[in-house]
């Protein structure tokens, strides 16, 4: 049965907006390390933080985060 994991397009959208990780972190109010972890899929943000990231990037949560299926 395939397992589910959260995948993200934050990095792609951020680059499209020509923002650095530090700039996005400052706008959202988190550390740059947190942005790195979110982009790398190492950290699943809360709904509140996901909304703040989406707002900062002028995007939506469902455009930035989605469920990826992978064979376990």
């Amino acid at each position, binding site marked *: 049965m395939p397992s589910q994991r959260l995948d993200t397009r934050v990095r792609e959208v951020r680059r499209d907006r020509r923002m650095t990780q530090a700039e996005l972190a400052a706008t959202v*109010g*988190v*550390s740059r*390390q*947190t942005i790195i*972890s*979110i982009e790398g899929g190492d*950290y699943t*943000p*809360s709904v509140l*933080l996901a909304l703040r990231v989406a707002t900062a990037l002028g995007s939506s949560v469902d455009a930035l985060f989605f469920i990826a299926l992978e064979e376990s």
Partner: protein
Amino acid sequence: MPTTYHRTSLLRTIGGLDDPRRGDERSNRIWCEAGAVAGQVQYIAAIIVAAVMAWAGGRHGVYWSIPVLWTSALTNITTSTYLARSGIPSIAAWRRVVSPRGGLTLFLLLVWAVGTARTLGGATTGRDLAITLTAGLVLVVLAATALAHHRARNSGPSDDDLD
């Protein structure tokens, strides 16, 4: 109506869960993970210290191992209290044994109990006798827990029952 947050506010303060110096939510989460790991390490270490005291510290080692054990039990008591106030059912004692951590804890308690019985064997004072009986009681509880676990595992539904 009190929320889970209000029911656990004192414990949250003790744990420093809302300390702004912990940084953003990811950083705070890692602080919480670190605290959970540290609590378990301290718990296991305290039981090891108590077992060593019971085996190598003579009668006084046994006496002082008991408050050490009670202090280590605070980890479990606090965890259970926090879970209860958050409306999360705790795990039945016999099911905890299934995990490697639970098995290690029981094994260390067994080492402590045997060490206590050995050190205070042939007890001459009422205090020694009481402690020896306590160690015996721990052994009985450990045996009963293991038996309950064994029975529960063997009394589960077979695959045929699930058809």
